[in-house]
């Protein structure tokens, strides 16, 4: 009978393709008090057994693979970091050392670091990583190395010298993690592989403090186990990682995520809807969020904005762009999109904690004095009280009144400082200055045609910004412009890259977050990279905007090191320029509604202790492992 039963089970499982699963250990059998359970926002992984992160093979990246097992030379945390600085020398013992003209970079590596299979990490691994990728076009960082590296060599086991094809003061950025970076390959594994492009790297060898324990062959979860020799990894400088096991799962749509966390089966939700977050805050006593009260969410170092295709008339005219900015009622947009839970930005940098300190706060006086000429008058468009006004609106809602900060500094940190105040009169004057006319309540372009705007939005895939774009189009329409929001599937690939749009809601600004150096996105805004109309635009200047003054700023930044204090002054010059020219209308940070359950673990990053970005798909989130503490006795 037993034989027959076993055969029956085997048959059913084989029919359902589960024979491979029979050996996988399920993560719920692990001791809960020793296991951190985290949402993987990538969902179910299509190619679950693929761990070769150096080839874009459809495998997961945020499964814990990049956060817990990979390592590279440096990290810049989007927040304050551990060890007193956002900058972290990880595999490197020190900051990069450049020669005078930035054509050579020398890296000193740490001693005593080991791969999880007991092999020592050395300079040969770094050299192998670069050379292998250069020799195999199609690997993720192969092109970046091929374009920049003339030669690379290990002068001793802890020293690597890069010779560059042309001066580049930011070459180290490729080895610096923001949320990902050029990870170092295990030479001793890959050198035995016939073709690194076709190698799945099953049973991955780890350089991080964790190693693979088990995963679901259908791609729904991955479990990683703390290495016995975690002291021989770069993270050990900050202490011992607390969770013995970390599981990344696909918990399903927002309602399932919310329920799982209410039941304490999911410690960290990567991102929820605003409504899901409000529910959690209301119903759970154990939830921790970045801001303790409204807006709860963590501001990502990206800047959603109204992006103009500046190669298309009339959006090539700064007066038209400014007119459209002055027709936006940001308070209504904020309430429609994030239900008020947003951090606004009038400047062209995301309002992360660091940029608030480095740029937003110091430039408030400049913003208050800033003037634009409408052709008929000069106006000061900035309203420094918008953040305060939003806080006042929310405080009137009984549900939120106790959660809204009252301290002006806290309000600015949570909701932003100010924004442009709606000024339809000035907007009309600017349009007239640009040759537009109003007839029968409708605006006509200089050649007498109805002024039509199609605002491209992402639809369901990013509903928060679809709501914002739709409302902005309505606000323009109520002014007499024929404006409509139109959804586009795959907005980036089908509209932004080919330039097949007029106006869109997206972002073209991504910063380090925790560091004032703006080169991360700004370098690619140089006019040398602006595609001709009809051709594909390389990232990230989706607005296809060029300006000689901007080129000068970018060239000046290229000529100084990343930590030169002059960089911040050049950053402010850029912010003043884009405020005048308005190639994009900055709206607000990309707020990520990350929630953390304290039933099993405490010590999560928050605005009170902002040691790292809480959003768990960022590789920086490895820092959490050493700050977390078990909430219950073992």
């Amino acid at each position, binding site marked *: 009978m037993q034989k027959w039963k076993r055969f029956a089970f085997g048959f059913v499982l084989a*029919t359902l393709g589960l024979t491979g699963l029979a050996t996988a250990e399920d993560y719920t059998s692990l001791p809960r008090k020793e296991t951190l359970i985290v949402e993987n926002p990538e969902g*179910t992984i299509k190619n679950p057994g693929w761990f070769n992160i150096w*080839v874009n*093979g*459809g495998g997961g990246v945020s499964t814990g693979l990049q956060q817990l097992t990979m390592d590279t030379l440096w990290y810049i945390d989007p927040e304050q970091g551990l060890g007193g600085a956002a900058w972290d020398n990880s595999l490197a013992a020190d900051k990069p050392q450049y020669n005078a003209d930035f054509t050579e970079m020398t890296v000193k590596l740490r001693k005593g670091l080991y791969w999880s299979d007991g092999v020592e990490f050395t300079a040969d691994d770094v050299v192998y990583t670069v050379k292998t990728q250069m020799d195999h076009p199609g690997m993720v960082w*192969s092109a970046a190395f091929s374009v920049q590296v003339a030669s690379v060599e290990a002068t001793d086991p802890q020293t690597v010298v890069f010779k560059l094809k042309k001066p580049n003061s930011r070459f180290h950025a490729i080895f610096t993690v923001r949320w990902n970076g050029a990870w170092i390959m295990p030479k001793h594994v890959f050198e035995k592989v016939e073709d690194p492009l076709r190698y799945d790297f099953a049973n991955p060898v780890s350089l991080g403090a964790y190693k693979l324990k088990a995963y679901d062959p259908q791609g*729904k979860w991955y479990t990683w186990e703390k290495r016995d020799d975690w002291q021989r990894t770069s993270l050990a400088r900050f202490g011992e990682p607390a969770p013995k096991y970390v599981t990344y799962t696909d918990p399903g749509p927002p309602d399932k995520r919310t329920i799982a966390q209410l039941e304490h089966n999911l410690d960290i939700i990567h991102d929820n809807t605003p409504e899901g977050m409000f529910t959690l805050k209301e119903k759970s006593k154990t939830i921790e969020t970045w801001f303790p009260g409204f807006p709860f969410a963590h501001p990502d170092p990206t800047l959603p904005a109204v992006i103009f295709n500046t190669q298309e008339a009339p959006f090539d005219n700064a007066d038209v762009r400014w007119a459209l900015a002055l027709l936006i009622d940001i308070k209504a947009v904020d309430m429609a999109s994030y239900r008020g839970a947003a951090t606004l930005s009038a400047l062209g940098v995301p309002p992360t904690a660091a940029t608030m300190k480095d740029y937003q706060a110091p430039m408030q006086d400049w913003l208050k004095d800033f003037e634009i000429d409408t052709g008929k008058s000069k106006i000061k468009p900035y309203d420094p009280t918008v953040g305060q006004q939003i806080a006042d609106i929310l405080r009137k809602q009984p549900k939120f009144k106790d959660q809204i900060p009252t301290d002006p500094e806290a309000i600015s940190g949570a909701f932003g400082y100010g924004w442009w105040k709606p000024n339809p009169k000035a907007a009309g004057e600017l349009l007239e200055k640009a040759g537009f006319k109003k007839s029968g309540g409708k605006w006509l372009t200089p050649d007498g045609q109805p002024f039509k705007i199609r605002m491209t939005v992402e639809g369901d895939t990013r509903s928060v910004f679809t709501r914002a774009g739709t409302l902005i189009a309505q606000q323009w329409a109520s002014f007499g412009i024929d404006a409509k929001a139109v959804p586009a599937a795959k907005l980036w690939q089908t509209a932004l890259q080919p330039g097949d749009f007029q106006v869109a809601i997206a972002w073209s600004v991504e910063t380090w977050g925790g560091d004032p150096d703006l080169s991360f996105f700004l370098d690619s805004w140089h006019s040398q990279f602006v595609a001709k109309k009809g051709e594909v635009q390389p990232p990230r200047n989706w607005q296809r905007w060029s300006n000689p003054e901007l080129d000068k700023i970018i060239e000046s930044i290229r000529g100084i090191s990343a930590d030169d204090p002059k960089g911040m002054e050049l950053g402010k010059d850029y912010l003043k320029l884009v405020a005048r020219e308005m190639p994009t209308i900055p709206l607000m940070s990309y707020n990520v509604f990350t929630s953390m359950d304290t039933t099993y673990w405490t010590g999560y990053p928050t605005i009170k202790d902002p040691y790292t970005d809480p959003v768990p798909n960022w590789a920086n989130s490895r820092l959490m492992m050493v700050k977390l503490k078990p909430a219950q006795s073992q």
Partner: protein
Amino acid sequence: MTPYLIFVLKRFGQFLLVVFLGVTITFFVTHLTPIDPVEESIGAITQMGQSDPNAIELMRQSLRELYGMQGSIWQQYLHFWLRLATGDLGPSLSAFPTPVSTIILRSLPWTIGLMTVSTLITFVLGNAIGALAGYYRKDMVLKAVSLVFIAMLPIPYYILAFVLLIVFGFIWPVLPINGGYEMNANLDLSFALVLDILKHSILPALSLILVGAGSWLIGMRALVSNIITDDYVVFAELGGVPKGKILRSYIARNAMVPQFTGLAMSLGAIFNGTVITEIVFGYPGIGNLLIEAVHAGDYSLVLGLSALSIVGVAAAVFIIDVLSPLIDPRIKVE
């Protein structure tokens, strides 16, 4: 050459022509979509922090070469057939270099399991009720049951899927509404796992069974209504043969011949999957895979799935055609 052999060869020629045309049309349709797998990959790579425009352009050229997307569309078409002739579906472009066949084989058992079971249940249920309703025409219970199934026939299966999802997932949450098995399930061989898998298949299967049974029911009822007036049935009744035996041995067996033809075609169409059902219930089959492949512009995977479907349906029709003269004496090959 016997007439039957000539018939088989002709039908085989038609089978090859159908497969060739189907795959050709699919090839050109997929290559005309605005989504480009190279740009998809570049999008993923730039998310990893790369923004050097020179490097991105170099990457674009490398990936085009790697993915076999260089040359004209006709050269790509020829290359595709040469590869397919050796049984190679090529690498998936969105999960490069994993072979398309590996990815399909991971999802296919789920669809085959769901579709085979639900098709067979639909077939048995529809024909059983149809036979009974056709024979016992005055039975009120059978009339009512038939009416329910026939009323559900025009409802699109995905609408019914949403209704079931709302009823059993939210209003009366007794059944799982997502996935093929519980995410936290213990995956060791056990009754619990089998039950869990079956539990997860109930709602998707039910959405297919409830809508599908009606068409079998109508067909069977009509066939039975014709047969019961045949002389041999009348004689059997007059001879006092028990009604159950008449229905089983005299009526149903004869009526089942054309129904089995329909069943064979339905089983052939299993490779189409049920895209919307799988999406609604998050079922890990080839329907979900197809949608992912379309979104990612993964030509190879779309072509692999389409080829499977085309060959499956065409092969089923071919097999039915060549077997029919051997099984059914009323069919003659001239």
